[in-house]
Structure formats: C-alpha cells, structure tokens
C-alpha cells in the first residue's frame, strides 16, 4: 500500500508491497517423487482436514464458543503436509503458535484438537495449553510455542539430544518470518552449525510478521542469515506440496547422513489475518487474491484430476467425510468435560504432591 513516502522515519515505508515472491515449484511428477495414488489421496485428506478444521474453528470462535487467541494456518497447509510426508514418523517437529496444521498433519485427531480450543480435559494438551500450545509427544510433535523465537533453541536442543544419543533422528524447527529477527535465532544458528546438529530450521515466510511486511521488518533475504554461519540454505515454494516433499526429502537425507543443520526459507501466504481480530488493512485484496490462485489444495486437486489419477467421487468422499469429522469434533468438544478443579495444581511439577505455598 502506498504510504507517505516523503515522511521521514525509521521503518521503511512507501513501497507497494508484494510481500513475498514464490520461487518455481518442482517440476517432478508424483511418480518421480515416489508417490502412489494412496499417497496422493492422503495428502489431499491431510490438507483438507487442516483447512476445514480451521474454518470451523474460526466459526466457533466467532460464535464465542471459546476464548483466547486463534491463529489460522489456512493457505500454508502444503508445508505441514509435505514435511510430514517427507520425514520419518519419529523425526521431531516443533513449531510456533500457528500450530493446528502441524498437529493434525502429524496424526492428532480432530476431536482432541477441537477439544483443546474449547479448553476441555479431552484436549490434546488436556485443556492446559489452548490454541497456541498443542503438544503430541507420542507423534514426536513438540508444540506449539507462543513466545516468538523462543522455541528455536528448543529445536536445536531436540537435535542435540538426538545426536548425543546417536539415534539418527532429524529435528525440524518451524517459525515465522517475524522470529528471524530474534536474538535466539542467531545464537542458535551459531551453535547448531558449530556443533553440527541434525536440525532443519524452517522459516515459513508468509510475508508478514503480524501486520508488518517482511521487507519492513527484516534487512536482507531471510535465508541468507544462514550464510553468516556457513550453514546450508535455500528458498522453497511453500504453496506446492510436491515441492515441499521434494526439497525436504533431499535436505533430511543430507542432515541425517552428514549431521549438519540446514536453513530453509519456505515462501508461503496466510489467507487469514494474524489472529481473529486482524482486519488485514496492511495488505491489499489483490495480493490476497493472487495468492489464493496458488492454493495448495486446489492445486493438488487439479493435478490429480487432470492426470485422471483419481475419480472425482473419491475426492468427494474425502471432502464430505472430513466435513462430518470436523462437525463431530465440535460435538465432541462441546460434550467433553472441562478439567477437574484439581487439575489446576497438576503437572506444575513432576510430582503432584508438591507443597505449594498457600
């Protein structure tokens, strides 16, 4: 948006932003990537589940069914889905507060995810975390972190433990473009490279740090920060699930084999506001519409139907099944109990009889 260019100030202004530019997607076909028909349907199902879950979550939020924050991942589903496809199930994932998609992609149920939004005991974090703090350790999903950049060292720590134990697992640490500006990133990059930690740092550059366009908050290309530490890095198209699968398969292989970190800048776009009360007046409708043309779910649907890989009714079946699954999840969440009052004092410490000061 054109701002008063003549005004003197600090943060750059006066530019009509196109907040993020997508690099070329991979040219590899599904065959080349080793994806079977079943895989393609799974990819569609995973992405559509994340999308539909969040649409209904937004609706429930607007109906006032629950409080707190709600940051939606809509538009970015190819990343969570592609990464989960590319990595091993016991590789460790950790992300920031836009975390619903990752939990669902990693196999958390719609029920437990919806119940967490409603603050119910049956929630994925027993109602103690809320939207921003989903955890599913049995699926090697480490959360759900809401202090911007504070989980970047945690990601490196997960990798540290994996290397210490020699277990061949790779840790992937996701964060938004706003987190790149935190000191924690630079300290962690330094140590990760120095100590050769098996970790992939991923900035999901969706163009905005809350309402500040990336050009206005970060000097230089994000991925180039890694150059300062001699860390391998690249830019990836985040609107195409094949590209994500392609790149992460290659990078994970390198990390596993050579025990060195990577930094990937994945260019993507969030369709929704930063949170539910964001009118989005820092960006243009045109920009939003342009990115919606690259929608990852539509893109995959078009691919499979043009190549006649699946029948229309197979997609239909998934769509309506997921629609119902998410409605059922709302019922599940509403019918579930809130945590018992005693839960207030549980899980502060490992022991539940800690002598709290009264």
């Amino acid at each position, binding site marked *: 948006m054109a701002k008063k260019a003549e005004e003197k100030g600090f943060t750059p202004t006066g530019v009509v932003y196109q907040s993020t530019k997508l690099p070329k997607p991979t040219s590899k076909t599904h065959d080349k990537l080793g994806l079977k028909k079943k895989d393609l349907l799974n990819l569609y199902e995973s992405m559509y589940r994340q999308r539909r879950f969040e649409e209904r979550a937004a609706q429930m939020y607007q109906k006032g069914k629950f409080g707190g924050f709600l940051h939606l991942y809509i538009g970015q589903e190819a990343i969570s889905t592609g990464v989960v496809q590319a990595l091993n199930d016991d590789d460790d994932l950790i992300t920031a507060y836009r975390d619903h998609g990752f939990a669902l992609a990693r196999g958390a149920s719609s029920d437990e995810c919806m119940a967490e939004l409603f603050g119910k005991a049956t929630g*994925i974090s027993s109602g103690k975390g809320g939207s921003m703090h989903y955890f599913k350790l049995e699926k090697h999903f480490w959360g759900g972190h809401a202090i911007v950049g504070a989980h970047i060292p945690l990601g490196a*720590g997960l990798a540290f433990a994996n290397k210490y*134990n020699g277990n061949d697992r790779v840790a992937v640490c996701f964060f938004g473009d706003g987190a790149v500006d935190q000191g924690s990133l630079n300290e962690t990059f*330094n140590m990760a490279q120095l100590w050769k930690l098996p970790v992939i740092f991923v900035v999901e550059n969706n163009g905005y740090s809350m309402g500040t366009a990336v050009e206005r908050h970060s000097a230089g290309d994000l991925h180039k920060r890694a150059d300062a530490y001699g860390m391998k890095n690249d830019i990836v198209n985040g609107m195409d699930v094949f590209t994500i699968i392609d790149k992460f398969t290659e990078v994970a292989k390198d990390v596993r084999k050579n025990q060195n970190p990577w930094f990937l800048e994945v260019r993507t776009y969030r369709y929704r506001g930063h949170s539910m009360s964001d009118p989005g007046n820092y960006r243009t409708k045109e920009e939003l519409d342009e990115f919606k043309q690259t929608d990852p779910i539509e893109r995959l649907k078009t691919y499979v139907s043009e190549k006649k890989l699946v029948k229309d009714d197979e997609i239909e079946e998934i769509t309506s099944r997921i629609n119902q699954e998410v409605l059922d999840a709302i019922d599940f969440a509403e019918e579930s109990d809130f945590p018992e009052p005693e839960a207030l004092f549980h899980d502060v410490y490992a022991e539940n009889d800690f002598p709290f000061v009264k």
Partner: protein
Amino acid sequence: MAELQFREAIRAAMVEEMRRDESVFLMGEEVAEYDGAYKVSQGMLEEFGFRRVIDTPISELGFSGIGVGAAMNGLRPIVEFMTFNFAVVGIDQIINNAAKLRYMSGGQIMIPIVFRGPNASAGQLGATHSVAYEALYGHIPGLKVVYPSEPGDAKGLLKTAIRDDNPVIFLESEQMYGLKGEVSDEEDFTIPFGVAKVKREGNDVTIVAHGKMYHVAQQAAKELAKDGIEAEIVDPRTIKPFDMKTVIESVKKTNRCVIVDETHPFCGIAAEVGFQLQRDAFDYLDAPIQRVTVPDVPAPFAKNLFDLWLPGPKQVIEAVNAVTYRS
C-alpha cells in the same frame, strides 16, 4: 566424613551423577578446556570427554534453550552459568520454557535440567554482577530453587537436583567456593528438597539464614552468645520448596525471629517467610519479626558503600537485640 571445598563438593556430585547416568552432561561457558571459570569442573573434561563436557559460546539465551530442548528429548543437562547475573540474558528459556512446558502440555513434557552457578554479590563487582536471584526464581511456579550454604549440603542437594525430574535452579557463591566443610562419605549421599536443618540450637531467638548469609548469621550468633543470648539458626537449604515447618517449630520455642536474606527487601525471601510466620505462628510471637537484607538499591562499587550495602553480623545482632527487647 571427608573435608572438601565447596567447589569440590559440587564437582563430586556432578562426577558421581555423570558416572551413574549416561544422560547427564555439563555445558556452559569455559567448563571444559578452561577447566571452569571457578575451577568447579576441573578435570571433568579429562574424565568425560568433549561429548559430555561442552564449552558453549557466550550465548546464554541459546545454550539455555538448547539445554531445555535436550532435556525435553530425554537428556539430563547441567547448564552452568558463569554467574546467575548472566543467566538473565537467557531467562526467557528458564521462565517461559523450562518452568511452563510441562503444565502447558498437560504433563506430556518432562524437563529434568539443572541450571547452576554462582549467585549474588562477590565483592566490588558493580551492580549488574551482584544480584541475589533466589526470590525471583522462587516466584516462578514450575521451578525448584536450591541455595546451599555448606559443602556437605551442596553435594547432597546437587545430586538430588540432577535426579529431579523438574527444572532446578541451583545457586552457589564465588565467595564460598573455597569454603571447607565436612561431606558425607556415605555412598550415594543425597539430601531431599524441602528439609531445613537446625544448625545451631538456642532458646532466645530464631535466625533463618540460607546461602552465604548463613555464615553471617553464625558469626552474629557467636557474638550474641558472649552476651548470653543463644540464637537458634535454621538453614532452609532449599528455597522452593521451603520448609516452613521447621522454622515455625523453632519460633514456637524462641518466640522471636530474625530473617537474614541477601535478596532485596521488597518481595524477597524474608518477606515471604515473615508473612507465613505471622499467619501460622502469630500467637507465639513476642516481638515483630525482623529482617536483615541488602537495601532496596543496586550494589554500589565504592568499598565503603558496598560494606554498608551488604548485611554483616552487626546488622544481625541489631535485629536480634530488637526482637529480644535489648537496647
């Protein structure tokens, strides 16, 4: 009983636990090749190698967080801060991640980590290097806080801290590292958290003192004894959990209490102990509780000002005189 220096007692605890449990490792600034800024980790690199004794860059935020991440993923890190004054740079990792992730994950995440290093003032080091942090960490649910005063306690409590499944803040003192004391020879000697120790018995006044201030209290008690005042000294040893029971028992006997505390007065340890005493031992008090703390100002550099700032036996004796109605 062997006589060890405070630093040797801490080292012994770490070495024993690292031999016992492969998942325990030490990291921090200068812990390996330099042999420890205060020689606490001397010789450990030689025994355990670079995999388990790890020099970090000066990146408290980064390595605190890597420690927390490693603890989440099954290891039991000991993170040494050169002093806790530097831990403030990485305190987000302690307060937001170490202390809260178990709760926010509904109990899924366990973070068995020890953050240890010297705490509080150590002579004329200026304001930023002289802060006693036990009250600040004690304020945060999810953390346990330990501040031993003697080598024997230090060893037993550090071994307990390393085995604890929660994040533990283990506070030491540069000025106490050379202090010698009896350390149990007992194999696998540990001291449970939340158990205070009456270290001097007396009937006239209870002095509650921990960490470095414990020694100030002992000096004051010696002086007071010359005047026929017998002070009972209670060393809580752990700040969180805090053993109020032992303190209250002692006050029931002596009816008077002085708390000696190196934190600042507002929201300090003495404030909390004093509150609990008035609530739970009201009918046993013969005088208002007194506290001896550093004043509500940063540490000064100038020698004369610093001496005014840091509590000594004189202030403790004055406080005891006040509660025993001796002028």
